[in-house]
């Protein structure tokens, strides 16, 4: 499904990713762990198509489609979803209107019928119930006045509504209490299946107790320096990144 080969990327001329290769087959959830500055967020932004991230070498494909040649909205239509580390606020934009616009944009591009307001509300309410979100979050402006936890919940609602093929969670667990952490895990776990895969980027092993990954990769200085099963996360938690570095 997702295939990254020898990816090099720079920000403002400074190389951040230095030959990163990674393959996530359909149906699998992988985790990337790594110290600050190792390139975790850069990887997520490069995949989502944010401006200012220059790919100098390598490739990234989703289901064989060249992600790097697409506009951000085309990537979303192709099935890419990024759960942001710091979700942006949109004063003046209602959450329900935003979600329905996004959902219908993707449905339209995929040749599916648009959802009317009633269908949409029914679906949103069902998803929100599962996520334990108060319904008034739909009426508020996107992320405006939301607590850190509410913003992450809202990201998970978008994930659950847009049902992408491939999701990147960029340190979604940072700053979350245990309940919110479980909610994030429940959302991802509920989507798990043969046609969904995800990349969970995290500092800590904590989230991976709830989303048990198929593979764990360690990112250091813009490259994957070690890969292993879920037990690798526990090893990192115990010994820290320094030990990995010397081992690599």
């Amino acid at each position, binding site marked *: 499904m997702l295939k990254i080969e020898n990816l090099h990327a720079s920000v403002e001329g400074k190389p951040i990713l230095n030959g990163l290769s990674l393959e996530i087959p359909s149906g699998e959830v992988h985790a990337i762990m790594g110290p600050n500055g190792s390139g975790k967020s850069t990887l997520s932004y490069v995949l989502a198509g944010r401006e200012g991230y220059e790919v100098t070498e390598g490739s990234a494909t989703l289901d064989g489609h060249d992600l790097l040649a697409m506009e951000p909205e085309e990537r979303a239509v192709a099935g890419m979803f990024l759960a942001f580390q710091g979700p942006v606020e949109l*004063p003046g934009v209602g959450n329900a209107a935003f979600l329905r*616009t996004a959902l219908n944009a993707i449905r339209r591009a995929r040749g599916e019928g648009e959802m009317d307001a009633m269908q949409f509300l029914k679906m949103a309410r069902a998803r929100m119930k599962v996520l334990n979100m108060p319904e008034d979050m739909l009426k508020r402006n996107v992320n405006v006045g939301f607590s850190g936890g509410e913003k992450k919940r809202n990201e998970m609602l978008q994930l659950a509504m847009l049902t992408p093929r491939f999701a990147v969670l960029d340190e979604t667990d940072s700053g979350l209490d245990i309940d919110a952490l479980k909610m994030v895990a429940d959302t991802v776990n509920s989507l798990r299946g043969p046609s969904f895969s995800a990349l969970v980027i995290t500092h800590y092993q904590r989230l991976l107790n709830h989303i048990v990954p198929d593979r764990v990769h360690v990112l250091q200085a813009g490259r994957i320096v070690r890969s292993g099963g879920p037990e690798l996360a526990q090893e990192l938690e115990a010994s820290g990144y320094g030990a990995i570095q010397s081992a690599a």
Partner: protein
Amino acid sequence: MTAMGATGAAAFLGRFEGLRTRLPGARTPWVDALRERAAAAFRAQGLPTRRVEAWKYTDLAAVSQGVFGEPLTGLDDAMPLPPAEGAAGRAVFVDGRFRADLSSIDALPFAAASVAAELPLLEGRLGALAAVEEQPLAALNGMLFEDGLLVDVPAGVAGGVLELVSIATESDRAPAFHPRHLIRLGAGASLTVIETANGPAGARYLHNPVTEIELAAGARLSHGRLQMEGWEGINLSTIYARVAEGGIYDNFTLNAGARLARNEMHVALLGPKAAAHMNGVQLVADGQHADTTTALDHAAPDCASRQTYKTVLLGRSRGVFQGKILVRQVAQKTDGYQMNQALLLSPEAEIDSKPQLEIYADDVKCSHGATVGELDPEQLFFLRSRGIREAEARAILVEAFLTEAVDAVEDAHVRAALSRAVTGWWGRQGIKVA
């Protein structure tokens, strides 16, 4: 210099000389005196240039160098207009002249009529507020006005919704018209006026209305104005409003049409606890110039004023906001707020913003602010990352920018009309927001 072929102030003065005996109210001594006074004021001032402080950012060269003709009466066939939802009546003016055949003002719970028809009865009222010695366009209007809408809502009457429609016709004469509207609400009366100004896309014309508004104690006027003139039109509007104790003047103006538009308002709060809400949106596309200039006079204690203006600029366009708040010594406990914000969607667009506070009372709360910005790339990326095309994402963010000003409109009819107008304008731009 003769009127034909002459330009600018000389042409308007020439026209006045030629028409003075035929203008409405001619040979009625007070009307003649009023026009003479306006003509003298206009002769003394001429059309303002950018050397005049109040016109520093708005160039009237298109008026002073243009050649304008007389509107022709009976030119057009009656045109179908969609009925307004919830409106009790409609007054239609074509090229500045009242058209009874297109209007319905007979079944209103108050008096509404053509100014031209009622002119003999308007001594001491018409011209009571317009400051012709200070505002040359009001002087021009006073010299040449032919018609306008007269509205009188008696004390205690809830007048409902009245539409005031101005239509410019397709004409190669480039007509100039100067309607004078008079709106008066008695004590405790209320009225919503939804005013629209339209014209054909390619027609050249000058629409120079002056509106005089008097609100007695406790009266409330919601005044929604949708300026959607044709692209080659010029709209120079001046409003004078006086609000007595406990009265509320609630104005919302959309400046979206015309190649050159000025929305100038002089509002005086004359009794305790009077209030003015003045909000507006300027949508300025390539080649357009839109100016909102407000002067708010706090002349009594315990009054509140709220102003929020938002300007969106596309292509090579220019926007202006000038807002003056005068708080007189007597106006203790004044609560004044003014905010104007501009969103520049093009590197070639320009906004000039001049807030001005003049405060002589010592116990007041007065704040003002101004911001100029572009669309936030992070917000744009977020929307696009959710599958929303760039053009649509831009439109969503621009609409969000306007929301605060639109939401400030309390009257549901005005808000609905405004939302439709904004959406329509947006559609005409083909969401070309780059």
